[in-house]
């Protein structure tokens, strides 16, 4: 097994190098056989990565403690699901998973049915193979997953209990799929530039792959937030940790790209800008990995300190310089801008402002993340840049972003006249102002909340009007039933309405964030058995404290009964889990969710006499946040779904080459 695992990695590296050389030689000498051989190599590289993953999974599942990695991240009593999920618990395993996804994407593109005969394929494959070579090199020489121990230990160290949660099984996988996925649009963009083929084809294909990567990044962040909320026991879902920031930055830049690419499509403008966004997004994924693997910043997510980060920094440098070289060498081709703007007030302008704000938000996150290093370099003092900084700096930027999102759908392309603005905005503006006044009258007096909810009302109305007008126009001609008209309108223009669903999802998320950040109530009380505490409309009565064992873990739990407005809600069991092979215990919160708010109960500490201390929190509108997350995913899926009505993959019309 040791031999098989290691052989798979070294053969993978050799094959990746061979495939790369073969494809490049094929392109240069215009020999199809060499390109075909290289493409065959892509499959072999994928198989090598698959074998290596399969061997490590087998070793993890069967507790082969002779392997250092298995010993470090599992123990024999661990449930099989968590044994397998230890694949991404450590440096070497997670990089192996990354490599597996990368080679999988490469093989998917090289042998894509829709791209058969496309001259871009050898270029894209070669670019992605460079990435694979880098990762196989790391696996072969720096972070080796198959290191044998001199002595076989009886038991492993076990998996960090924080990672023993279904959310943590999915969160890293989706995040990696997003991270790796961003290498694909990068490869498409570079291939298009090398081929001097900046037409509609590359935009559509790049956009499609970017949405896929964006979707996985979104899912990764959503699952991460969900996990933090239920598992960490602090009642929050986003801590602006450097590693969270590392995944949020490419999310912001890809969101910017998905909007600005529409201007390129319509007006043939912003080509350099769009290419830059793709390069930045890709570079940010490598920068994020550098942050996690280098130990330069303190993070709860960080892997053990290693020199791995430096390799990523160097690779990022090489990738960015290479990309810049290609962009500059083709600058005369892409700078040609045929378009022009008719007016300051137009959909085009709103997209530019949207890009400005998204990039501004990404820069603010970047600046906050690296500021401890900047401060240390300049003053010798390493300051902390935590939640309060990011919340304060991001709030106005993201709120402005929401406002642009609200007004953009009703702005016309080319030029919005005063008449057009009046017609489109007078009613939504009056209604949102009325909503804001009503909120103030109802007692919501925090400025951020009132302004935020006012903007969200505006967003809902403008989006509703977009759907309403679309259906009305369609019905005028087709006389369909409203629901049929809505369905057909949406499936015939998936991208647009998918985007609107995402916007509505973001608005729901914003409602959840504003509500839970501004109106949460919390208390911490020590109770004797039979005593109660009151928080908002809830009364929680502490019944008893008890203990049970589950495998090697001991669980201390409290039985509590919760009433709301005097009515029984149910019995709950907040727990503290003590792990047999882990020093720190973890909290299992008791959660009662409703559409309006979550009651969040944490068992904090207890005494021998049976008194227990509870932290109880009421988090308003948390369900809206999760519902919004669901809508974001649905909207993105709707946008990329290849319906029967329309083949999204466009026909390649660019330059043909001798080799494909």
């Amino acid at each position: 097994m040791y031999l098989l695992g290691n052989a798979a990695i070294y053969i993978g590296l050799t094959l990746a190098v061979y495939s790369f050389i073969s494809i490049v030689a094929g392109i240069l000498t215009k020999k199809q056989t060499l390109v075909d051989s290289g493409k065959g190599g892509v499959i072999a590289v994928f198989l090598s990565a698959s074998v290596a993953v399969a061997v490590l999974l087998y070793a993890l599942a069967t507790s082969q403690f002779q392997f250092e990695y298995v010993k470090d991240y599992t123990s024999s009593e661990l449930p099989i699901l968590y044994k397998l999920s230890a694949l991404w618990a450590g440096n070497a395993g997670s990089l192996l998973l990354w490599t597996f996804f990368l080679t999988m994407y490469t093989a998917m593109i090289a042998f894509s049915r829709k791209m058969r005969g496309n001259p871009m394929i050898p270029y894209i494959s070669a670019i992605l193979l460079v990435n694979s070579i880098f990762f196989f090199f790391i696996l072969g020489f720096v972070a080796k997953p198959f290191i044998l121990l001199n002595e076989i230990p009886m038991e492993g160290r076990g998996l960090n209990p924080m990672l023993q949660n279904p959310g943590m099984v999915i969160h890293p996988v989706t995040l990696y799929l997003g991270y790796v996925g961003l290498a694909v649009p990068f490869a498409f963009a570079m291939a298009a530039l090398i081929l001097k083929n900046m037409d509609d084809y590359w935009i559509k294909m790049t956009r499609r792959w970017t949405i896929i990567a964006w979707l996985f990044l979104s899912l990764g962040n959503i699952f991460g937030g969900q996990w933090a909320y239920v598992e960490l026991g602090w009642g929050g879902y986003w801590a602006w940790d450097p590693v969270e920031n590392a995944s949020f930055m490419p999310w912001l830049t890809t969101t910017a790209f998905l909007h600005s690419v529409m201007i390129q499509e319509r007006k043939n403008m912003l080509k350099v800008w769009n290419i830059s966004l793709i390069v930045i997004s890709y570079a940010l994924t490598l920068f994020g990995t550098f942050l996690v693997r280098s130990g330069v910043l303190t993070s709860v997510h960080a892997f053990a300190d290693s020199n791995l980060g430096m390799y990523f920094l160097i690779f990022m440098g090489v990738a960015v310089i290479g990309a810049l070289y290609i962009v500059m060498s083709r600058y005369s081709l892409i700078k040609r801008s045929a378009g022009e703007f008719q007016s300051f007030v137009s959909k085009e302008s709103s997209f530019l402002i949207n890009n400005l704000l998204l990039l501004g938000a990404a820069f603010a996150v970047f600046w906050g993340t690296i500021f401890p290093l900047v401060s240390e370099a300049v003053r010798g003092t390493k300051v902390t840049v935590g939640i309060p900084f990011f919340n304060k700096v991001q709030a106005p930027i993201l709120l402005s972003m929401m406002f642009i999102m609200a007004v953009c759908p009703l702005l016309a392309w080319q030029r919005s006249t005063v008449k057009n603005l009046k017609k489109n905005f007078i009613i939504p503006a009056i209604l949102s102002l009325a909503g804001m006044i009503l909120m103030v009258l109802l007692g919501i007096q925090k400025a951020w909340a009132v302004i935020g909810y006012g903007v969200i009302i505006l967003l809902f109305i403008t989006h509703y009007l977009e759907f309403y007008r679309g259906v009305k126009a369609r019905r005028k001609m087709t006389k369909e039933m409203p629901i049929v008209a809505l369905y057909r309108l949406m499936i015939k223009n998936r991208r647009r309405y998918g985007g609107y669903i995402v916007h509505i999802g973001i608005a729901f998320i914003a409602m959840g964030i504003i509500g839970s950040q501004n109106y949460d109530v919390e208390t911490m009380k020590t109770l004797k058995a039979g005593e109660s505490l009151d928080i908002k409309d809830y009364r929680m009565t502490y019944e008893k404290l008890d203990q049970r064992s589950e495998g090697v873990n001991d669980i201390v739990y409290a039985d509590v009964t919760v009433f709301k407005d005097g009515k029984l809600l149910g019995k709950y069991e907040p727990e503290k889990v003590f792990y047999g092979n882990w020093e720190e215990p973890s909290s299992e919160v008791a959660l009662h969710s409703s559409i309006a708010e979550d009651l969040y109960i944490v068992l904090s500490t207890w005494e021998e006499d049976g008194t227990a201390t509870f932290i109880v929190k009421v988090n308003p509108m948390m369900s809206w946040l999760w519902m919004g997350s669901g809508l974001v995913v649905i909207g993105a899926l709707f946008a990329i779904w290849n319906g029967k009505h329309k083949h999204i993959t466009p026909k390649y019309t660019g330059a043909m080459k001798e080799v494909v």
Partner: protein
Amino acid sequence: MRKLLSICFIAILFVLQAFLLNTHATSPDGEYDYKSAEFKAVAAQFLCTCGCGQSHYDCDMAGCNNTDAFKKDILTMMKKGMDKDEIRHYYVKTLGEEILMAPDSKGFSLAAWVMPFAALGGAGTGVFVVIRRWVKRRDDTKTLEEDLKEADEVEGEIMSSMIEKERKKYL
């Protein structure tokens, strides 16, 4: 008379405020609520150094003696009548700026707060200039077109045929 009334009003407010502060600070049995809003305002400023990455307000790590002692110290200072800023000042002076959850808003650390908005302002100006140039470019072309007195009807026809084509495509 009016002056007297306003003095009375202010006095009542002070009494009420003192009463509210007092009732919030401790519960009837003397146990302090470390999750109260006024404690949050103070404790959420300081980073817990146990490695949890959270503020002292949020840290609930079992056996974290660090945060227990810190919370008690904060409470003692609050009981002495020190406000949020005074307590902050005290800790920054004693333990350095590292203890804060967010950079201070003075000296070099001010750059942390200012830079994102300065960058946004600069980039915003750039976007404005670019849009203005593009709009101007269009206006120049338009003037030229007007001079040439090209017939709008032809363009109108092309436009309506394009709209018709789009309509058919989407229906």
